[in-house]
């Protein structure tokens, strides 16, 4: 394990227990009434979900940036997150979300459909340009259908529910969500880590990568599966949470040797930390209603993105 990963693990080991105590009501494990129940049934699953989602999005971002050889790539660009969101919106539209399992199931089905479409369009050749365009087209289509669903919502309550859900949050999540997301996100992260060697080869471009033994179609399938599982499961349990996959690899890259493979695990750990801290902020900030996690991360992410663009511009000048 590399030094950045060890440091991040140590910080996470400290941050998770502290995060359990943080909230609108700060918990003293010895004094607060029903502290054990609150910690075990509300705060711990929420904290673990934050870790899982952050890890999945961080790993997916690092892998996608390595795959596209572009530091501005984000897993949301490739249609899987919008596909999952569309699935969830459909379940809310029809009122199926009243059942605990149906919303995440629909979201996972949406992610799977986006993955299948992406693989069907781009998978045969393994070409990166076609993959990117296909992903953007799927993202655009899913976004348009989601907007259509909102505009044709059967009633104001459904519309409000859809819009609120799309903002992403970890409020009121339970162990059921953890058990649903954990195997999918962990499997996806392992798949992305397995793609590391081929992503390193892509540092030298597609042709050189093939000459180094990379099978482009197999790599693409691995990435679609890895990003699909991590991002699809994240959206299924928490809604759309942007910017993690974009920001985290940038924060971690200077502390690694900059190969995509050495970025995936530290990005997963840093993503876990970022979402955990952001969710704590959402709970702690004294607002009328709890700040949505997706909004909080976008508020952090957008200025970061702009700063990144300005730094790149200075580099080009």
């Amino acid at each position, binding site marked *: 394990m590399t030094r950045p990963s060890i440091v991040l693990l140590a910080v996470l080991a400290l941050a998770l227990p502290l995060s359990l105590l943080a909230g609108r009501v700060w918990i003293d494990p010895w004094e607060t009434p029903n502290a054990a129940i609150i910690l075990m049934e509300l705060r711990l699953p929420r904290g673990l979900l934050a870790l899982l989602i952050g890890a999945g999005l961080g790993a997916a971002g690092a892998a996608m940036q390595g795959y596209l050889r572009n530091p501005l790539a984000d897993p949301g660009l490739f249609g899987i997150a919008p596909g999952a969101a569309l699935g969830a919106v459909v379940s809310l539209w029809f009122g199926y979300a009243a059942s605990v399992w149906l919303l995440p199931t629909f979201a996972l089905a949406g992610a799977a459909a986006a993955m299948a479409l992406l693989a069907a369009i781009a998978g045969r050749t393994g070409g990166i340009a076609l993959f990117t365009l296909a992903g953007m087209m799927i993202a655009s289509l899913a976004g348009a259908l989601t907007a259509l669903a909102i505009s044709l919502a059967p009633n104001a309550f459904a519309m409000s529910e859809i819009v609120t859900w799309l903002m992403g949050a970890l409020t009121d999540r339970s162990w059921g969500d953890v058990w649903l997301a954990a195997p999918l996100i962990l499997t996806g992260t392992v798949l992305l880590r397995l793609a590391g060697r081929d992503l390193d080869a892509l540092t030298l471009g597609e042709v050189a990568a093939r000459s180094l*033994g990379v099978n482009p179609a197999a790599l693409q399938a691995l990435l679609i599966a890895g990003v699909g599982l991590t991002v699809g499961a994240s959206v299924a349990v928490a809604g759309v949470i942007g910017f993690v996959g974009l920001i985290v690899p940038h924060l971690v890259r200077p502390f690694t040797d900059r190969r995509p493979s050495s970025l995936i695990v530290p990005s997963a750990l840093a993503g876990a930390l970022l979402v955990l801290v952001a969710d704590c902020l959402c709970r702690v900030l004294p607002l009328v209603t709890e700040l949505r996690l997706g909004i909080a991360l976008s508020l952090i992410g957008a200025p970061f993105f702009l700063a990144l663009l300005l730094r790149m511009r200075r580099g080009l000048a």
Partner: protein
Amino acid sequence: MRLAARDLSVALGGIDVLHGISAELAPGTITALCGPNGAGKSTLLAALAGLLPPRSGAITLGEEPPPHLASRERARRIGYLPQNCEIAWDVSLATLVALGRLPHGDSASEPVAQAIASCGLAGLTARPVSTLSGGERARALLARVMAGEPRWILADEPLAALDLAHQLAMLGSLRQAAQAGAGVVLVLHDLALAMNHADRVLVLDGGRLVADGSTEEALASAIITRVWGVEAEWLGEAGARALAPRRPHSSP
């Protein structure tokens, strides 16, 4: 282990680019692929590396066609350096060269250090590639290929845009690799470099092999006139020849 093309034809985007090329290349030598722009040199090199499927004919490495080898096995045997190779991330020179070990699935430090030393880059291992000069970068990319200890080194215009000293340094490294038993195939535009440093030259024109032989035979003035449309004369002694073009052959 010989690398051979037998009656090889390759099409790109439905257009035939190579037509019926046959050549058997021996290890331990430097072979130059020469020809005017669009002659099919880069296509032939990529096809020899097993990266382009033949439309007809075959490429064989020993007894096996490279496209049929498992991609990693092919990568262990054939090191390929494309023209204008990009480096997407600002890795250190040592990390860049170590990418050559990917087909082996290890990060053996000995071959990486050897490749770095043989390309004269020993003092630069920790330098980010963005801080390297054009010549250092080109040598680092060649060292990346050599770190994989391939039986064949196939490089597309590795000397383009290098100054004289760097060209000679690169050719020295490649000659060392050939003397150690590797086969070296280079696409070269500079006919004098091919004449002075290759053991054999293949001349392509319009996707066909029009000359194949020793440097003196394949790059004879008559062939240069016919293929490049330029009347030219070789000056100097063997091993230090210079090409003196007179005028375009077909010009009034």
